[in-house]
């Protein structure tokens, strides 16, 4: 799978997973993904923000503007109940796939 299709297939689940830990804003989400993958996945802002807005439209996340002490004003996103339920379903789907890959990619037991 090329990188673009991979991003398209996973971006919503990853974003929901990050927001399930704690509320965050776009730039921080991109930074977290980059750090966690050791720089292997670097999202462009142009592809993340429309996804955040779409999730908000579907009420899976909600947004608010906030200016923490000594920082600039940013738009934060937090996951909703509806988003958590959606994430739960996604987790099951991905676990199935992960399970499949685990089996497929583990060394074959010796037949002798």
């Amino acid at each position, binding site marked *: 799978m090329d990188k673009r299709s991979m991003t398209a297939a996973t971006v919503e689940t990853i974003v929901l997973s990050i927001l399930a830990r704690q509320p965050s804003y776009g730039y921080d989400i991109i930074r977290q993904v980059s750090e966690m993958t050791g720089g292997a996945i670097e999202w462009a*802002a142009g592809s993340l*923000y429309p996804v955040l807005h779409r999730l908000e439209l579907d009420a899976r996340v909600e947004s608010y503007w906030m200016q923490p002490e000594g920082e600039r004003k940013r738009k934060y996103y937090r996951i909703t109940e509806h988003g958590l339920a959606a994430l739960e379903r996604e987790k099951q789907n991905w676990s199935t796939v992960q399970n499949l890959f685990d089996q497929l990619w583990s060394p074959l037991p010796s037949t002798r």
Partner: protein
Amino acid sequence: MHQFDLDRAIASWRQFILSRQPYMDDTQRDELEAHVRDAFDDNVATGMEPRSAWEKARGSIGEYGRMESAYHQNFWRHKAKDGSLNGELRNRMSIVWNYFLLAFRSAKKRPLPTFLNVSGLSIGLAACLIIGIFVWHQSTFDRFHAESERIYRIGTDYRIDGDVIQSAATVGPLLPVVMESVAGIEKAVRVSMRDAELQRNERRLESNQVLFADSAFFDVFTFPLARGNAATALADPLGVVLSHESARFLFGTEDPVGQTILVDNTIEVRITGVLEPIPQRSHVQFDMLASTAALQMMESWIFENWFSFYFYSYVTLTPNTDAVEVAGAITQVARDRAHPELIRRDPGYSLALEPLESVYLASTRLDQPGVTGNPGLLRIMVGIGLLILFIATVNYVNMATALSLGRSREIGIRKVVGADRGQLSRQFLTESFLTVSVALGAGLLIASITLPKIGDVIGVNLTLGSIEPRVLVFLCLGLILVTALIAGWYPARMMSRIPAAPVLSGSLPGGVSKGQFRRLAVVLQFSISFILIAATLIVDKQLGFIQTYDNGYREDGLIALDLSGDQQLGSNPERVRSEMLAIPGIRAATLSSAVPGDQPLGDWNMRFESPGGDQVNTSFPHLLVDQHFLDTYEIPIVAGRSFRQDIGADDTRALILNETAVKELGFENPEDAIGIRYDAFPDGGEVIGVAADFHFTSLRNNVGGIAMRYMADRFGMLTVRAESAQLASLLPRMESVWNDLRADKVFNAELMDEVVMQQYEQDRRFARFFSVSALVAIVIALMGLFGQISYSLRQRSKEIGIRRVLGAETSGLTFLLSREVVILTLMAAVVGAPLTWLAMSKWLDQFAVHTVVGPMELVIATLVTMGVAFLTILGSTLRAAHLNPVDVLRRD
């Protein structure tokens, strides 16, 4: 180097986003700004230069195009979700409506250019519509049959002396055998075409379209019956089906079914059915349909002969059958049964299947059962249609760009009050859509009025009503879309780029009027007009050349009469000849098997003694004539002698060849061929004379070899010679002689020069089509020129005024103002002349004898183009040159 200013960079970036991301709202822009600011801070923190840090932060957005489409999707999703979709759509419609209002106002403000634009475009669109309709008509023949895509016609390929002859016909016994032994064929039918005279009481119909068909005819083809039963209509050998038209002609409003008619004055047949009108787009047209069983009673041998091609065979293949495979199997069957002589002469004898849907337009086979299309003419027409539309479109572009000068203030103001380039482009595109739509409406009107007349010119009977509505709708929408986009794109792009500030401060931008582009456009338009005018002249010249070309016999004063098939006249043609000759004023008369311009002559196999004494097998077209033929046609004998007046002494063994035939046989000198022995059906003999060459067929072909022999039972044509001046008075007397002889056939005298010219009907149509298109092209080009000149003279009125004040003469000014147009049309001629020469020389090469593209046609075309262009602008330039300078200069 300047200190980097982040706030300024961000402000200009936001401006960029604003123009590129129309679906992003303010908070979304704020959010993105916070993002790039964060990225910038992080980059600086890693030790980057501020400028580079900014560039990297800006780059972290990714592809702006992808982002725009993502925001676009979200925008509509949002509208759908919060229930404001309808409102948004209404809003958009009102914007479009607003564009329409603006376009309408702009049109009202400039009535002359609008009128010229709309009328030019409507003529151009009408031309395209007509041509589009014609192309549709020609390329959709025979699709009305229920299984048309599975129906094929069997054609025969055979070789004579190495030349492949492709015929649309097949031998009679083929199809029944094929049906028995070849898999993949569901249904099949043979048809054969004959001439006949149909008579009921006093009404007579001379038909050359009587179709004999197997009883499966109505299974294979879909020709619905208005009266009668298709399953049994052809069951009785003496039962016939009439076409709608012939039933109406013979029976009027009576019901013909069950009644009888007389065929060729001998056989009485019973009407078993009447067809619905046969669709125009059918390659086979017929007046009467009879059973092959009846034909078998008259000409049984053609049903058994594997050597003569008298039938057209059609098969319906079973679904998903490979036509090539079936054709191979049919070839095998035909070869197994073919006459050994045929296989001996052509070991490669084969048959092919042609899809029914393409036989009309694509088949180039000989002996077609009906009319065929002309794909070459069709391609030329499409080309000319596109050129005419191009001229009209260029007019629009030209006028719109010229007007942009006057509209730059409007555009500047619209920009200042917040219109962006996209909005302005959309506004101008809407204007072009509106103009083109109105023009198309007018074009439809023009097309509906002129279509029948144009149909006459190109030989097809067409009205707007004969087109399937969905085809017409598709054609109209396609034309609007393509023309509006092409016409609107350039002006929209150009006008939306006009900067606001200099326009409003009073200094008009210089590059807007694009004089170069307009001049180029005029040259292109007029070179197209030039080419069409010159082509018309050249086609006309060739037709005139053909008419006056010495065919090798004297054409004027000859009248041809067709006696063939007439029981009374055909049984004793010599009597008809002598009775006609007795009319005072008729100087000579001859009987022959054919006349020039008629069907091609049949090739007969012959064997000659060559100059070296060997036997040579060859074939020559045979013209069977009496002893008066050469005298009547005034064809000189160059060696030997003509037939003796007392023909009994010569009879069928005497042979006269023409010069080409003698040369083909290898004789240097015509005298050497005299006395040479030959063998041929029905009897051999010797060459008694050599006649000078004469053109028997179209001048497209070279003079071929011709053999002339006396065979009294084959005479079907009578030719008489009179003084040209007396022809009109002789015809009624000839008719009364014809009727006194109790002829069955209607008197059918034709002047020979007309018969000969009938071969060039297609070329005449070609000429007429060219002249009509040349006229249309030049009229549209002139409209454009007129509009442009009127406009540019208004722009130059101040200059003209000043020149007048400084003492310029009216004549000098007129010359000055028209000079450019004269130069441009001259350039158009320079561009058009070599193209015309190339294209028309190629066309002329189709004729074995032809004229050449001379300087005269090119000069005349140049003078016509230049002359009409000059006359078009003369009025405007004179008026401008006569303007009172006081009025002009006071205005500003």
